[in-house]
């Protein structure tokens, strides 16, 4: 199977200061596979997700990232989204005054338009959103409210997964999706993600703890430290981290 996301020798620094955060990341996520990146705080995991989604404030000093062979680092965030990149935020943003439904329909139609597809009709959209929301136990009230406003931590994360389900991206990046979730909420979110697993979709799950990976079983696990991937292995690697912590792995690497 071909590579969905291909990251080569990626070097990234902060735009405002002379601080190198990613120091040569190499990573390939194949279609149909779930890759997990684990690592201690400050290892650069979240930066990787920001850079892939196009957030301001970072400067790529070397290397590349492609989606199905197409360079994404030169694209605007909305172009990346239309190309199929989706990042589930660690801290989903509250947007007072913008209805959740309006937001999702605007996003979906903007992506379709960018890809030269027809806009979805209101009726089809409603049907789709209700169906997908039900699977994630998101009620009609949550759909009507402004984006993420007044949502609990769990509701926010479920809303992220709902957006993912609606937008049907090719490459899903989950940034610390388990943070702030209790076990039940985590299970719901994981179910949502698992339902989206498919042979033509890739996943990159970024997490600090192994517990999320009990529910979203990865095919490949990477350990990131100080801006590099220092170890790659199977699902067992996550368990090893859980048992021995990151310090041992770092020592091993050294």
């Amino acid at each position, binding site marked *: 199977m071909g590579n969905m996301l291909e990251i080569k020798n990626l070097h990234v620094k902060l735009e405002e200061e002379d601080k190198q955060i990613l120091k040569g990341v190499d990573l390939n996520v194949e279609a149909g596979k779930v890759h997990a990146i684990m690592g201690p705080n400050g290892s650069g995991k979240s930066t990787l997700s920001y850079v892939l*989604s*196009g*957030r*301001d404030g970072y400067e790529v000093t070397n290397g590349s990232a492609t989606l199905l062979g197409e360079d994404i680092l030169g694209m*605007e*965030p*909305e172009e*990346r*989204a*239309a190309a199929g990149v*989706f*990042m589930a*935020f660690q801290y*989903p*943003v*509250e*947007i*007072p*005054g*913008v209805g959740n439904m*309006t*937001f*999702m329909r*605007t*996003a*979906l139609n*903007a*992506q379709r338009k*960018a890809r030269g597809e027809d806009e979805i009709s209101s009726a089809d959209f409603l049907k789709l959103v209700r169906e997908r929301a039900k699977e994630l136990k998101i009620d009609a009230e949550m759909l009507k409210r*402004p984006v993420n406003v007044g949502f609990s931590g769990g509701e926010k994360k479920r809303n992220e997964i709902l*957006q993912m389900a609606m*937008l049907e991206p090719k490459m899903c990046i989950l940034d610390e999706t388990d943070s702030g979730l209790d076990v039940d909420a985590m299970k719901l979110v994981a179910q949502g993600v698992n339902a989206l697993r498919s042979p033509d979709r890739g996943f990159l799950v970024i997490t600090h703890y192994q517990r999320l990976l009990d529910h979203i079983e990865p095919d490949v696990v990477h350990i990131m430290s100080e801006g590099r991937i220092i170890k790659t292995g199977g699902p067992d690697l996550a368990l090893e981290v859980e048992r021995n912590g990151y310090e041992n792995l770092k020592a091993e690497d050294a």
Partner: protein
Amino acid sequence: MALPQVKETATEAKLAALSIPEGAAWSTSIREDALARLRKVGLPHRRDEYWKWTKPDSLNAPEPTPAALFDAGGENPVFDAIDRLKVVFVDGVFDPEASDDLSLTGLEITRLSDAMATDIHWAKDLYGTLEARGQDPVARPFAILNTAFATDGVVIRATGKAEKPVSLIYRHQSETSDAILHHVIKVEEGAEVTVLENGPAAARFNKVMEVDVADTGTFHHVRAQGRDHERQAVTHLFGRLGERSTFKSFTLTVNGVLTRNECVLEFTGDDATAHVAGASVGDGKFHDDDTVFVTHDAERCESRQVFKKVLRNGAIGVFQGKILVKEGAQKTDGYQISQSLLLDDDSQFLAKPELEIYADDVACSHGSTTGAIDEEALFYMRARGVPHHIAQDLLVLAFLAEAIEEIEDQELADDILERLDGWLSRRRG
């Protein structure tokens, strides 16, 4: 006390170009009285505290600055689809051909000049009355000037529930028109009327609307000022509220090199409610000033001011809002918020929120903020595929929502939103 020379000169220069329109004895006497009052206070000067952020020079000038007509393309005017009674003014002159028949169940509508030609008319007790009451403690010279020299307008008396809104439409045809309109509205006990206003009106527009709402009466007002970029306007809305009455006014301001909207409200009966709201969007050479003065002189009344301005490319927004709670106006509930969203570093928002309270059992609050677009929200939306300009527009509309929600009628609110959408998409080019 004699006027400062600079004021006297400006005032006399202005007066030289104006003459009091003919009418019945009562109207002439009210107008002459206004003229005398104007000579006493003089036209505003930019050193006046009340005009420190809005230069009155171009409003003072005897001749208006010409204003080009704006081609809105195929866009329908606002309120076009609303079932309403149309009253059309072209460059400040009533146009009977373009207007509907001035009759409507629940209302009496008369052209101002007709009312003023009649020896006995109810408007006699109201024309210039609320305007004069509104001159203390702050003078509003353009309103006095208006009372003295208004050439047209309508007087409306609501005796029941009006079956549809009265829609005052101000067309602008001459690039040098200088219009002075004065409307008087009397809402009788338990009666209800909605008044709509739209259109650029003239190159320079001076308008006064006096609204007297009797006990349990209801007055709704929705206004859209816009279209012609170069137009200038100074308007006054005076309201007096009786017991358990309701007064709600919303104004959308788009375009216009100069707009000064003053709203002066007075609670005289207990348990009344007044909301004044404004949403404005300005791009480039745009100066929009909302000046509001609410006087609570009765118990348990609620007043609410909500003003939101979105500014870019050097546009300027001004808000001067005051809540005055007189002694004895207990249980007053006063709220005031003015906010601006500056889309770049060149734009400015100047705000002066004021409370003056002489009663000891009241709840009053005011707030004013100036902010930039929420970059986090912008990125979040873009990361979902929403292009930058659409994401920004959504945030702009979200910012204005609190003001637009003050429009009670959903159909009218939707119309205003559509207008904003049109403005935003034109700006996108």
